[in-house]
């Protein structure tokens, strides 16, 4: 059963990612795109966690953890860019 459930959830995440990408490409504003990218980061974490469950391995946990950390930092950086231009003042 778990296998089917995984596939199902997987499909949901996949659809989510596609929706994110759609928003990312369509925009219309830059903040919209950043928001989409940030969501994409998080959805990717979901993807990796699912993959880990499917493969019964925790070896990709750190990747997920880092995406969480780094996604945040880069989103903040882009926002800072939009606000101030100079991200390190």
């Amino acid at each position, binding site marked *: 059963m*778990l296998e089917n459930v995984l596939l199902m959830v997987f499909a949901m995440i996949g659809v989510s990612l596609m929706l994110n990408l759609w*928003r990312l490409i369509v925009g219309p*504003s830059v903040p919209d795109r950043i928001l989409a990218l*940030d969501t994409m980061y998080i959805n990717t974490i*979901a993807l990796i966690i*699912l993959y880990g469950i499917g493969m019964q391995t*925790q070896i990709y*946990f750190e990747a997920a953890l880092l995406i969480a950390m780094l996604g945040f930092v880069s989103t903040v950086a882009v926002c800072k860019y939009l606000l101030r231009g100079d991200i390190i003042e």
Partner: protein
Amino acid sequence: MTEWLISALLILGGLFILIGSIGLVKMPDFFMRLHGPTKATTLGMALLLIAANVFFSVENGVINIKEILISIFLLITAPITGYMLIKSAIHHELKAKDGTKGMDNIEDD
């Protein structure tokens, strides 16, 4: 039993994530789009991660809650992401949906 639990958590988590992304696509203005990802997705992630915890605890026979770290992390950062995004949206003077109340509350940045 645990399999049911895991499955339920997974499906719920997936659903929330999907809804978050639907919100991202569906909402009419940026400020409203922001709500989906910052909330629904965060919860969806938490559910998924709990599912993973349960799964690996069962799988390895020891209690495993390390995935919750990611959730903690997201809980800490998601509001700041939203804050930064909304700041830049205000800075870019993005149009809010017609009829949005309290626009006069926004000051120059």
